[in-house]
Each structure stands twice: as C-alpha cells, then as structure tokens.
C-alpha cells in the first residue's frame, strides 16, 4: 500500500531558517528508505519565495499570483511516497524522518487506489 509522507518544516524564524536537522541526517534517511526497498518517489521543494499560485475562474479567466506565503506555521517542504504493508509501518517511517523533529511534522496520507 502506498502512503505519501508530506513533510512540513517547523516554524521558520525571522532569518528564514528553523533549527533543522543536518544534511547528513536527510541523506541517511534517504538511504535507509531506498535500502528498505520501499521508495516510490519523493522530492524536496524549493524555497517558498519561488512559489506561484494559479486559479481559473468559472469563465475561464486565469489568475496568477505570487505565493502563497507562510501564513501557517508549517510549510510543506517536500514529500515522499513509500510502499509499505500497513499504516503502522508508514508511521514508523514517518517517525524516522528528520522532518518530524524540531517542531516539524510529517502528515501520512494513504494514496487512493482506484484499481481495487
């Protein structure tokens, strides 16, 4: 069963950087996920200042805006899709993710399976 781990960073301070885990932590985690044979896909997202939002109105008019900016305290910083047997296994991998520490949070969402 596939689960998406939505990795939210903790509160970002004025300097733009929350006390985060080291790059080595992330590399070790990434390696563990791949070595376990459960990795489906995953990306880290570029800084939020690069984000752009698109909306299309009922009349087909396109609105493009800069942002969104950090109105909430937690920002989506990346995601990972893993294939594991059940929620307990997914929660274990979420707990091992460096993004779940230092005020961050990992939201675990099962990927909908329309084939079954």
């Amino acid at each position: 069963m596939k689960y998406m781990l939505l990795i939210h960073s903790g509160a970002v301070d004025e300097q733009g950087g929350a006390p985060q885990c080291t790059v080595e932590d992330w590399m070790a985690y990434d390696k563990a996920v791949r070595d376990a044979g459960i990795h489906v896909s995953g990306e880290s997202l570029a800084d939020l200042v690069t984000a752009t939002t698109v909306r299309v109105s009922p009349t087909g008019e396109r609105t493009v805006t800069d942002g969104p900016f950090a109105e909430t305290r937690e920002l989506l910083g990346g995601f990972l899709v893993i294939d594991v047997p059940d929620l307990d296994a997914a929660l274990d991998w979420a707990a091992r993710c460096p993004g779940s520490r230092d005020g961050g949070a990992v939201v675990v969402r099962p990927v909908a399976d329309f084939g079954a």
Partner: protein
Amino acid sequence: MAGGDASAGENRPAVGGDASAGEGLPAAGADASAGEGLPAVGGDASAGDAGVAVEAVFREERGLLLASLVRRFGDLDLAEEVTSEAIEAALRHWPAEGVPARPGAWLLTTARRKAVDRLRRDQAYAARLAVLRADAERAETVAPAPDAARIAELPDDRLQLFFTCTHPALAAEDRTALTLRCLAGLTTPEVARAFLVPTATMAQRIVRAKRKIREARIPFRVPGPDELPERLPGVLQVVYSVFTEGYAASSGPRLQRLDLAEEAVRLARILRRLLPAERETAGLLALLLLVHARRDARTGPDGEPVLLEEQDRERWDRTMIEEGRDLVVQALTGGPAGPYGVQAAIAALHDEAADVESTDWAQIVALYDVLLTLTPSPVVAVNRAVAVAMRDGPGAGLALLDALAEEPRLRAYPPYAVARGDLLTRLGRAGEAAVAYREALELAGTEPERAALRRKLGE
C-alpha cells in the same frame, strides 16, 4: 451492560431493516468472568434453557467471535456482518433445536461458512481481501513477528482487536466507541446512550472510524514487545476513560452510571487475562475494582454524592476489595510501579481503613509523590494536597492548593474549588469557603453535584 434492564429485549433481530438490528442481543447481566473460551460456555444447557443460555452466551462471545473472524479474514466489516448473522441464526435455531454442545464453536463455524459464502458471491471483495492477506504476510517478513513465546501466552484473538480499536491514529472518542462496540459487545444504540448522543450520530462516527481502519489500513496486529510500552498505555486509557465516565458522569442527571463502570471492569478483566505479564493490566483492574467496590456508598438516597469520609463503609463490596488488593500486590511486584498500580495502592489504603481518621495518610501522601513523578498533573497535585491536609492539617493542605491557583487546567475542574472550600471551612473561614463553593457550583456538570454544593452553601 451488566444488569442493564433498559436495553434488554429491545434489540432482538426479529425485524429487519435497521443496520444495527440483530447485532445487539439482550444484555444478559452475564458475570464478567463468564465465557473465557468459546467452547466452555453453556455446554450443558438443555433445550429448555435455550432462551437463558442464548442471552448468557452472546454478550461475551460476540467479541471473541469478532476477533477470531477479523484474524481469519482481515476485514472488520465482513467479520461484524457474519458475526451478527451467526448470532441471528443461533436465535432462530437454538430455541427450537436446543443449544448445541459447544455453542461457541457452532457460532464460529456458522460465521466462517457465511463469510466464505459471501466471498464466493462477491469476487471483487474477495480479490481485495486477498491483496490484504498478501500484504499482511509480507508485513510479517518485513517486520519480524513478535517472539513466539509472547504470542503463545495469548489465549484468544481479542488483543489484536484491542490494539486496532485503540490505535492512536483514531480520534480518542472513536477509540472508546469502537472498543465498546467490538470488545464490550454493545450495540450502536447502546454506545450512543453511553456517550449521550443520538444513535445516528454514533452510527456515523463508527462508520467513519471503520473506514479509516480499512482505507488507511490500520493493521490488526499485536505490537511487538519493543512497541508495547508505547502502545499499551493507550489501550488502558480507553478502558479507564470508560470507567471514569461511569464513575463520575461528566454530565447528565445522575452522578454514577454503573453500567459503564461495569463495562470497564469487564474490559479490564479481559485485558488482564490477555496480557498477564504486564503489571499495569493488574494495576488498572485493581484500581477499577477498589474504586467500584464503593459504588453503593458513593451516592445517597436522592443520588447526591457522599464524600469518602461520610460513606457507610459497611456498604463497600468486601469481595471486590479483596480481589483488588491481591491485584495491587501483583501490580507493584517485580519492577518499577506504573501509574495505575500506584493509584490502585492509594485506593487500597482507603478501602482498608475503618474510617478517615485511621487512614494511613502518610503512606497515601508518599504514593501521591510517586504518582506525581510518573504522571505530573495538577489534578494529581490537588489530590496530594488533600492528603497532606489530612496528615498535617487543613492549613498545610490549603497552602498547597493555593500554590496551584494559576494552573489553567484547574480553572474548569470543580473538585479543586470544592477542596479549597472544604479546607477553608475546616479553618473556620466561612466567607472564603462560600466563594469557593459558588465557583464550583458554576462548574459542576451533574445535578447531584450542584445540589450537594447548594447544601454546603446553606441554600
């Protein structure tokens, strides 16, 4: 709901239609210890006793059947459906044909056959379950199964179901609802009554919780020994919260709801049997028994609360106290004590004392000190302050209570204001006591509590 006459007879499956019809059997005040194993129950019942045997058997059997079927088929909905069908079949056949020699085995066989039939008819469903099966087997190889010795000591499959129903990924209230329904064998209307919500609301909540179990794939498994310290407190908490709602209802016309308290005792007994090596299962059961033993003395003729110091101790249930005390010893032997064991030890000291004056308050204060290190909470600190007042006098207790005045959790906690009022009264500071009682009156959730406070205020 042992002794719950109100529910008896209204859930007979004679009329179809309602989704919950047939799931609920007349609550047969079955003794909590009945039905430890499927084949053991009602084995020698003759045909003439069929009605009685049917009632006595199902309450406990439902959870056992359900757990066994969930383990076999890996699907809670299917297991519930065929459990209900098997029980309906028993209600049809047994009164006429007599109770089979092994009623539990009969029910299980019948339910399994119905499940297999259902899967034959519905190939898509069967295919989905087959995928689940394959994944479950894969899970066993990915994460090695807990060691065999531990599994071997589990007498039935209900432990899996306990851990699923109380999974932390479910909302706290849903955990309690599912546990009452799947393990205590309450019907949806009965669970709704327990929560004082409409049946339709509860039905929706249960459907939503089961949907999460199915679609997020919350597994049916017993956590390994390494996970148990993290997961067991959650299971115990659900049973404890059922008890506290029964012991001191948070709202409604009555102070105590004995049906819920008895359900909790029953669930705690099952957990104790399923996890005999875990001392906190002994601690929880001991605590519930030692508190429940005072049920008849806790309320007066008009349902008003009677304080511990005013209770007629002759009316305490000595058999239950004896059982609880033995369990306290088990809970506190062989390692560091857990919070339920310590609370049970405190309850045992109260239960053993002839009156309030001869109660071993020094020992109780010492136990509250231990409890505060295990589960620091302002509520525990309030109880400790009251015990200190008994040991060292009301002034000492009041000083400790006043030091807690800034705790946000105590602002909406009536016992805090009541305890202050009582100590102020003992110190002869009637005016300040009245202010405290009025504060408590604003907060009290049940009518008997409010009536007792009005009496204290002389109104």
